[in-house]
Structure formats: structure tokens, C-alpha cells
């Protein structure tokens, strides 16, 4: 059963949850694993809370439903920690990764599992010039879970986004990816 890792993404419309949940799955598939990525399609409004889901497994993935008991939650917008129960269904051995300037201890008691934090918005602003936190959060997720190697992700960012971004934005994204990978931290 737990050959599979289930990831739930929380963010707001415009922060790149859809891109992140699908991209992470696509990279896993290209690495020979099984992957599944999809957002929850609600009313599509910029700034509205939204979820995305990623499953990674060594075997074929059969579940086709939302992730109710995640192993990892990735929170792209800190305000959702208060307004939504982002850690719903997360077990004691689960992990939350939160985009925030605050330390993990600031979220004590909010999640059953371990809490990691990284200031992805600041990293995105400094490296990309726009407050879109999905790329740094992908880097943080890779580090915390060890599911995918950061160099592999970097190569796939080049592959999937070079045409869309242009060189300057692409390089900014790659720096943001690696910085969050190195800066994400947990207490203790």
C-alpha cells in the first residue's frame, strides 16, 4: 500500500498549483516511476483557494480520487493555514512544507506531522522577479521527500519551460528551485 507517496498541494489561483502538481508527476514518470497529477477544478478565480494532487509510486496507480490521507502537504500560501485545514488527514508520520518567513515552530500544534518551512515567495521575488512560489516549493518538496533528484528536476524544467519562459526567466526559476531546495528547514 505505502509503496505510494500521496501529496496534496494547497495554494491560490495564480500561484502555480496546477503546473506544480502535474510537473512533479511528469518528471517521476520520465524517471521510470508511476505518477499521477491533477488539480481540483473548482470555480477558477485568481486568488481563490485551490488544491492539487500528486501520487508517485513504483507500481501502477489505480486510485482516481482526491488525496484524503496525504503523506505530504505542500502549502504555497501561508494564509491558508488559518483559513483552511491544510493538514486534514495528515498522519503523525506525515510532513507539511509551508511557504512562510516564519520558522516551523510557529506552526506547532497545527499539523500532526513534521513541519518544514521555506520563504518561497521571497525566493521567487528575488530570483524570478514575480511572487509565484511553485518552483521553489517543488525544490523544497524534492529535498524533503527525496522522491526526485534536484538535478533531474532542473533538466526537466529546461525541457518543459524553456520555450515558454525565455532564458532569463528560466534561469531565475532554476535558481529559485535550487535555493529553496537548500534553504527549506525543520526545527531541531
Amino acid at each position: 500500500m505505502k509503496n505510494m507517496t500521496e501529496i496534496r498541494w494547497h495554494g491560490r489561483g495564480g500561484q502555480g498549483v496546477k503546473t506544480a502538481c502535474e510537473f512533479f508527476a511528469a518528471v517521476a514518470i520520465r524517471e521510470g516511476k508511476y505518477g499521477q497529477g491533477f488539480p481540483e477544478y473548482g470555480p477558477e478565480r485568481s486568488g481563490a483557494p485551490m488544491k492539487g494532487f500528486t501520487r508517485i509510486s513504483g507500481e501502477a496507480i489505480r486510485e482516481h480520487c482526491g488525496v484524503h490521507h496525504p503523506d505530504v502537504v505542500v502549502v504555497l500560501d501561508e494564509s491558508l493555514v488559518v483559513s483552511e485545514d491544510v493538514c486534514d488527514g495528515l498522519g503523525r508520520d506525515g510532513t507539511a512544507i509551508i511557504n512562510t518567513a516564519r520558522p516551523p515552530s510557529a506552526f506547532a500544534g497545527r499539523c500532526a506531522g513534521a513541519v518544514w518551512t521555506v520563504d518561497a515567495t521571497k525566493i521567487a521575488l528575488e530570483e524570478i522577479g514575480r511572487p509565484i512560489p511553485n518552483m521553489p516549493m517543488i525544490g523544497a518538496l524534492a529535498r524533503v521527500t527525496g522522491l526526485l533528484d534536484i538535478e533531474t528536476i532542473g533538466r526537466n524544467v529546461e525541457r518543459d519551460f524553456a520555450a515558454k519562459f525565455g532564458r532569463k526567466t528560466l534561469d531565475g526559476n532554476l535558481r529559485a528551485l535550487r535555493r529553496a531546495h537548500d534553504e527549506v528547514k525543520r526545527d531541531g
Partner: protein
Amino acid sequence: MKRTLALTGNESAAEAMRQINPDVVAAYPITPQTELMHAFTQLVADGAVKTEMILVESEHSAMSACVGAAAAGVRVMTATSANGLALMWEIVYIAASLRLPLVMAVVNRALSGPINIHCDHSDSMGCRDSGWIQLYGENPQEVYDNMLQAVRIAEHPDVLLPVMPTYDGFIISHTLERVDVIGDDEASAFVGEPKPRFSLLDIDRPVTYGPLDLQDYYFEHKKQQAEAMKRAKEVVREVGEEYGARTGRAYGFFDAYRTEDAEQIILCLGSAAGTAKAVADELRDGGRKVGVLKLRMFRPFPAEELARAIGHARSIAVLDRAEGFNGVGGPVCPEVKAALYKAGGADVFNYVYGLGGRDLGPDLIRSVFDDLEAGRADPREAIHLGVRS
């Protein structure tokens, strides 16, 4: 050459269409089908296929253009969802009655109203009696596989009926997964060239399509249509086996998962089946004798084979992703009950679930198996699963 790709259900259908390279596609966009036709029209624009793409002003026109092109004897495909399928309605019947081997992907979506863009089977179940063969796909891999097989089934000289491969809107159409595809040459060799027997453009052998057909011959033509649908069973089986020999992924009328010694069985169609299989495995680990039957082919309905596969169970839950508004439940359950009429003592219960995209998670499926084991359900009434009272 075999390749492994990361594709959504819609992209997977488009990849199959690229390899099939149909002569004519006529389509109109509708969520959640839109990305399929978006991807395919891009292929047309890029010259990756030789298809004549007809962008029409409505789905009624889309199906009408498909009928005309298919009668001319070329290979024709289209795709739609929900209200788009509803707008095609009269021509959907005509395509089948004229014995035109069209293939139309239906990306299942709730048929309004209130307006809803998410998945249920109310659209394709509505045309279960229209004379189309229906194949329900579980995941993006099956979407690809069913599209290729649909062409062969439709064009088989014993069949000559349109085929509707379906898959769940958003849940499959917009979910990215691993899909193994065969090489372009292998796909071309598998689908082959269309060999129309009665082409409107063959002026040496003139034929008429769609003339007035009154008390004198209409009934005979309907009987022939019904017989073609019966023959389609054998063709679906043959094509599924041949596809399996070529790809390692064989297909039949249904996928009976751990049903052999099962006392409780869930029967469902489409994406729900995968989640149900995962729950069945978990319950089996706890010593419970449960299984899942995923019905792939709803038209023609494999009644005898189904009875043989699940008739031994103590109780069966049929999960319908459409409300039948018949006072007793959904459209699949009555057919399963009829199939089991002489098969023995299984109690059959009907659950209506997932309307308008309501999520069907493992907890709800577990609750169905628990109901069956405890004998809690009432066979006279459908249970609406996961609905708030």
C-alpha cells in the same frame, strides 16, 4: 517503437488520433473535451496528420458532417461531452442506423442542469439505446488503447456500427498519468486502411443513404442493426485479444478483479474501478472475500458472460454514475439484475454515486463493501452514496 509518456486522458486520446490519422474530423469545443480537440487541431496545423479538420458551428453540425464524410467512405472521428452530445442527438441515431463506422470519444460530463462541467455518465448513458457500441475507459492508458481498438471494431465488416469510447471528464481527461504507447508503424498496422463497402463517391456502384423507409423495410433494417450489435461482441473480443498480443495489454468485455471466490462484488464503470480495486486489495489483506467487476463494454451488453463471472457472489453492489429517474436507481443496475435473473441467488443493490463530479474516495467504497457484508442495504431502493441528506 514503444514509448512511455506522461499524458492526460485528453492528450492520450489525441495521441491515439495522431497515430490513427483519420481522414476527416469535425468537432465543436465543449468542456472537458476541449483539450482533446485543441491538441488534435494543433497536430493538423503542424502537418503531423493528413486529416481534413472541419471546425463547425455546433455539435449538430459536427455529427452531420461526420455522417456525410463517413458515407463517402473515409475514416471519420469526433469527440464531445454532455450538452454537446445532447445537441447531436438526432444525428447520433442516424449515424448508427446508416451503419457508419464513426468513432466518437465522449468525455463524460454531467448533463445539465443546474450547469455542471464535471463528471458523471448521464451523457453517454442517455444514448445507450442509440445503436452505438460503448467502451468505458478507466484511466489515460485505457483511453489510448480503446481509441485504437474502436476504429477496428467500428469498421469490421461484421459490425459497421459507430463506437463511442468514453472516459471520465476531469478525473481522467485532465489527470496526467503514465501512458505506454506503441510505435506509429505498429499503430498504423493495427488499425489498417479503411475498406468502405458502400461509398457514396463510388459512381460505378451507386448507393443511397438515408432514404424514406416506411412499413415495408424499416423493421428489417432495424433487425439487421440489432444483429450487427450482437455480432459486435465477438469482434470486440477478437480485437481486444489481438491488441493484447501486440501490446501486452489484452481487453475483454470486462475486467473481473479477484471475483472468482468473492462473496461481495462491486460492479462499476470507468475511473471508479481503479479506486475500488485498491480498496478490494486492502480488504482482502484483512481476510475478506471481496472483488470488483469493471464493465468495459456496456453496449452491446455482455449479459451471459457477466452472469457467469459474478453470479456466484452472495451480494453485488452496482455503482451507477447517473440517476435513471425511474424511481428505482441508475441505468446499469436493471441490466445487471436482468442478466443475473436465472444465474442464482445473488442479492443486487444499486448505488448512485459521483453525480456532477462528487469525489468517490476509498472510504465510500469501503462503506459499500461493509453494507454488503452486514446485509444493511435495501434491495428495493437505490442508495445515493456520499450525498448530504
